[in-house]
Every structure is written in structure tokens, then in C-alpha cells.
């Protein structure tokens, strides 16, 4: 089965007679089909606007009351725009720029990384349910990070540090194991997912064992289960941003090739592409994204499956559309979820993983139900 099987009607219903101006030319697939595959700038602008609006909302809302009308001037002042002076107190500025804004941006980056990673796996494996969590990627990243933290092997140079590296190795091991096991079990999408479940369970068991051995640190495992974005300052943002930028650029640059692969490896090869290499690069990039997100925020589940599917329901199924919109949508989704985490029980916090799972699990069931013929 292919990605289209679970996709929304919008995927195939774009007007075919539409003029070609303002669309990204694919140059590979003929025009009749291409309209459905193209990313219209209007949609991109809308998605970006939604993301920016959610970012604004995240920054505006919190237990510390900062007047709405003061936020934009404060940002302008911060950027040293001429003629603008904020009336916020230094304390309010610290809240705004050292707590609320970095947390919102971190949430956006984590959401972007997880959603883009999920969308990439779904495209590469042609499986609508592929996701960093279901494939054992997150469990592998968690195990890698646990080994480094538990063994006191932490060291780092900017964004290159041992925790992120170990998380990446673990993530890659997870996805490679799941893919190998799944291939051995047959070609159905269910085989890959069941293999992923087995791999995730195994890696989680190893991680739990390691954590339990340290009687003082055994409670730490809950962190991974719940996930969190509690942060101060810009350190975590600086850590995650380079991974999102580089891997995101690689994945987005390959989005057309990924669409071509859907037609078949032979056709792709005849067009001069190397399907094996493209898949490898994409899997490595997606795993690195997921690993970096897990290293910073713990286990926040379902983002990688909810967001790409929402995008497919709304605008279409081609990777050229799904990948960039998932990146933006993932950022907006997780910022919204974190807003919920901060405000639902305010001034207490709700673990963000609880919120994403509360929204994501029913959605996952919905995807299973609508795509049941394709998956069975």
C-alpha cells in the first residue's frame, strides 16, 4: 500500500486545469498529475501564519500577567528598533524573553522535528503509521541518552555532544532493527509496525533495567515517559536548532525525489535517481531529528503521526506538500499543546506528553479506522 491510501480526498481533487503560475514546478511528473502534488504558496503562507499566531499566543499567555499591548513594543525594543521603548519592568522582560519565549520556541522546534521526522518515515516506508515512537526510534534515542547520562559520560561542544550522539546512534539502531525485522516478517505495513513495537519494547526494557540498577535514579524513567519542555534561557534552543535546520533542509530538498520513489524504484532509477541512497539519507536525517528532539525534551508521543495526517486530510498527500506543511504544523501543534500544559491546571503544570497522547491516541485510532483496509 502507499501513502495515498490513507490520505484525504483533497489529495486527488486539486483542479487540474489550474494555471501553473505560482506553483513549484516539479519537472518530473506531467502536469495533469502534478497539480495535486504541488505546494501552493498560499497554503504555505497560511500555515506559516498559523504557526506565528500560535507562537504569539504562547508568548502572550502565562500565569504572570503581562499586558498584551506591551508585548510587541517589548519585542521591538529588544530588537533595538528605533523609536520604540518598552514600559515593561525588567522582571517582566525576563519572564518574557528568558522563560516564555524560549519555551515556546523550543516547543516549536521539537514539534517541527517530530512531525517532520514522522512524515519522512511515512514517506520512506510508504506506511501511514510509521512514526518515531512506533518504529522504536524514540526508544533507541532514550536508551542511548540513558547510557550516557547514567555512565556520567556527558561532554559537549555546542550542539555536538555525547548525549545527542548516543541518542542518534540509538535512534538509528532502533529504526534499522525495526526495518530489518519488519522486512523479514513480510511486506505489509503491519509487519513494520509490529517489528517497531517489538524493538521499542526491547530497548525500553534495557533502558528500564539500567535505570533500575541505580536505586536513586530509577524515578528518572518517568521523565522519558512524560516528556517536558520546562526550560530557561536559550541553551536548549541553541542545541536543537542546528539539527532542525540541517536535517530539515536535507529532507525538504529531497521531497520531490521521495515523491518520485512512490512511482517505483525502477522508474526512479530510469530518471537517474538512486532510490537506496535517497532512502538512506532520509532515514538518517529523520532519525537525527527525532533523536535531537528526544534528547532535549524526553518522550513526547504522537506528534509525528497526528500532524502529517492532519496535513494530508486538509491539503493532500504528496510528500512535497506534506513535508513542509508538517514541519510548520508540528511546530504549531506542539506550541499549542504546551500552552495547554501550562494553562489547563494553571498555575500547576500538566506533563505535555499527557496532552499530546490525549489528543493523539484517539486520532491514531481514527487513522487506523479510516485506513483499515490499507493496513490490514
Amino acid at each position, binding site marked *: 500500500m502507499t501513502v495515498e491510501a490513507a490520505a484525504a480526498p483533497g489529495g486527488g481533487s486539486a483542479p487540474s486545469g489550474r494555471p501553473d503560475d505560482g506553483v513549484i514546478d516539479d519537472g518530473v511528473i506531467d502536469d495533469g498529475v502534478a497539480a495535486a502534488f504541488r505546494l501552493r504558496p498560499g497554503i504555505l503562507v497560511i500555515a506559516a501564519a498559523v504557526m506565528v499566531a500560535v507562537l504569539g499566543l504562547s508568548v502572550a499567555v502565562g500565569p504572570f500577567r503581562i499586558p498584551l499591548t506591551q508585548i510587541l513594543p517589548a519585542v521591538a525594543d529588544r530588537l533595538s528598533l528605533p523609536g520604540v521603548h518598552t514600559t515593561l519592568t525588567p522582571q517582566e522582560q525576563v519572564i518574557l524573553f*528568558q522563560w516564555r519565549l524560549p519555551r515556546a520556541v523550543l516547543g516549536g522546534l521539537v514539534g517541527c522535528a517530530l512531525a517532520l521526522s514522522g512524515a519522512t518515515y511515512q514517506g520512506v516506508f510508504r506506511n501511514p503509521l510509521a512514526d518515531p515512537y512506533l518504529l522504536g526510534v524514540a526508544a533507541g534515542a532514550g536508551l542511548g541518552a540513558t547510557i550516557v*547520562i547514567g555512565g556520567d559520560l556527558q561532554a*559537549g561542544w555546542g550542539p555536538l555532544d555525547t548525549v545527542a550522539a548516543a541518542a542518534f546512534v540509538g535512534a538509528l539502531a532502533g529504526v534499522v532493527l525495526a526495518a530489518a525485522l519488519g522486512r523479514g516478517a513480510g511486506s505489509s505495513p503491519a509487519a513494520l509496525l509490529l517489528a517497531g513495537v517489538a524493538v521499542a519494547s526491547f530497548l525500553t526494557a534495557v533502558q528500564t533495567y539500567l535505570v533500575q540498577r541505580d536505586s536513586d535514579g530509577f524515578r528518572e524513567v518517568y521523565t522519558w515517559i*512524560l516528556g517536558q519542555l520546562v526550560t*530557561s534561557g536559550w541553551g536548549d534552543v541553541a542545541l536543537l536548532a542546528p539539527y532542525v535546520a540541517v536535517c530539515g533542509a536535507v529532507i525538504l530538498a529531497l521531497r520531490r525525489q521521495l515523491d518520485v520513489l512512490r512511482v517505483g524504484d525502477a522508474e526512479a532509477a530510469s530518471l537517474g535517481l538512486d532510490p537506496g541512497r535517497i532512502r538512506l539519507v532520509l532515514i538518517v536525517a529523520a532519525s537525527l531529528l527525532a533523536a535531537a528532539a528526544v534528547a532535549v525534551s524526553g518522550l513526547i508521543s504522537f506528534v509525528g503521526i497526528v500532524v502529517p495526517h492532519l496535513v494530508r486530510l486538509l491539503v493532500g498527500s504528496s510528500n512535497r506538500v506534506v513535508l513542509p506543511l508538517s514541519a510548520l504544523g508540528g511546530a504549531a501543534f506542539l506550541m499549542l499543546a504546551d500552552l495547554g500544559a501550562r494553562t489547563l491546571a494553571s498555575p*500547576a503544570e500538566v*506533563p505535555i506528553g499527557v496532552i499530546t497522547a490525549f489528543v493523539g491516541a484517539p486520532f491514531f485510532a481514527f487513522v487506523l479506522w479510516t485506513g483499515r483496509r490499507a493496513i490490514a
Partner: protein
Amino acid sequence: MRSRHTPSSSSRRPGRALGAALLGALGLLAACGSGTDSGTGDSLASADSIASVASTAETAADAFPVEIDTAAGPVTIEARPEAIVSLSPTATEMLWAVGAGDQVKAVDSLSTYPAGTPVTDLSAFEPNLEAIAAQQPDLVVLGFANDEIQAGLAGLGIPVLLQPAASTLDDTYSQLAELGLATGHPDEAADAVADLRAGIDEVVKGMPAPAGARPKVYHELDDTFYSASSGSFIGQLYQLLGYDNIADAADPDGSVGYPQLNAEQIIQANPDLIVITDAYSYGPADIAARPGWNTIKAVADDRVVVVNDDVASRWGPRVVEFLQAVAAATPTPAGAAQQ
């Protein structure tokens, strides 16, 4: 690892506080069972009544058999136990406090106080029936309700005292009395309770009267801002000392016990005192370095106190030490006036 940019801060995260929250929830549940005061017959002595009747001179040896009302129902102890296994660090401290230390044969891996306890690798959190039975105990003290272990030990004819996390100081007193009764030291237990009450009273009486509004405290469990509200045991100790607890805003009815706070709210609440434990490797300097926290009164006035994690998380005789540490850091009205 989120915090690895600051080398002095810890990698430990809120799972620990979650564990604490679970402990608290267990304590609340157990409190429902332990507060009942049954009629005191000749052979049936309730722990509460012993605690209040301080000096009914009765020699320890002829007190057995005793029947004790515990959190898990009545327990009969036929003879003075000589091979006690304690699977609760707090109960271990209490056993020594009531003078039953030399009757203790083995304790769990975390029961390291007082010095010289017979520490084994028995787990308090995941007790193993065979490992406990291998010690051939004649009394087992549990800190968590555990149906399998309790039923298993009952099947082996080994009496079990369940002493879950206290939710009030009264639970502490009745657990001390219960242990005294069970080990043949009722008088020493009554003395220990009296000493504890006196020690607490002394600290409370020595507290300066607040110059204006009640001082505010923030008790930090970890660097993701899990805290302890007045619904928790430790929160009640702060109440006793006349503190308002900023975590109560996140847990108005006290049902959560250990809510996770938001850093913004902590800055805004502006506590007069911040209490952290030594369970993590960060200290007052790391707290002062958090963005915006230098505006918090407790940080500005240098009132960030580090307390021993065991003292702050157990409900035994050492609560006095905790209260003393907090009291010592409390601003005096004269000091406050100078600020």
C-alpha cells in the same frame, strides 16, 4: 540532560517528584485507615491510646501477646520480636528511637540512619518475599502497602506492620507508639513521642512573630519546579512554622500534594524562603543564576536553604531537624526591618 549546559546542575528530572507524589498519595490513603481509635480492652491496645497515656508503668516482657490496630487491620504479635526486618527507612529511624534497634536483624538498602543499621540489599520499593523470608524475621515493617507481600508473609505466619507515609504529625506519633508496642518498648515510645512533641513545640515557640504578612515559602523538589503544597506532610510542617506555601495556588484543596509549578508563577509569588534538598547537585548559586530569580526576595536576601534529602523526605524523629533548619533561615522582624 536538558540542563547539561550548566555543569553544576543535575540530570535528574521530575520522575523523582512523581515518585514522591505517589508516596504522598499512598500516605493519604493510609491515613484514612490509621486514624481510627478503637476501644481499648484488656488485650486490645490501640497505638493512639498508648501514645497519649504516657506513663502506664507496665513491664515490657509481660505485655505480650499484643494485638495492634494497624493501617492494614489488627495484628497479633505473640512474643517480643528479636529478628525484625524493616523495609522502611523512616520505620528504621523510629525503631532506633524507641529503643528497639538491637532487635532489628535486617533493614532495606536505603535505611542508612542511624549509623550501624544492618543494611542489606533488600528493596523497600520492590520487596521480594523470598528474600525477606530468608532473613527468618519474627516481625516485618513495610513502608508501602503491598498485597502480595502482606499475604505471603501472613501465609508464613510472620506478623507485618504497615506504616505508610504519614500525612500528618499525628500519624508519626501513632506509628512511633505502634512500633513501641510491637517491640515491647511502649514506655520508650511514649517518651520518644513526648520528646518529639517537645522538640517541635520548642521550634514553633521560637519562631519570630511575622512583622507583617505571613512569610512565603517555596519548597523545591527538583529543577523542573515540582513542589510540596500544604496537602503534603512536609507542607504541614511549613504551616506549623507560620509559612504561607506558594505551591498552594497550584493545589488549592491539597489533593495533589506535589504539584509542578511554573517558573513564572514562582517569580511572581516572590517567596521569602526557598528550601531545596541535597538530592541534586545544584545549589543556591544555581538558583540565583536562573533568569529573573535574582528579583525573588529569598534569593536577594540569601535565604535559599539546602536540607538533607532524607530528613526532608521522612516523617520520623528527625522532622525536628528539618524544622530547625527552616526556622534558622526564617527572617526575623528586626532583620526584615533592616532590609
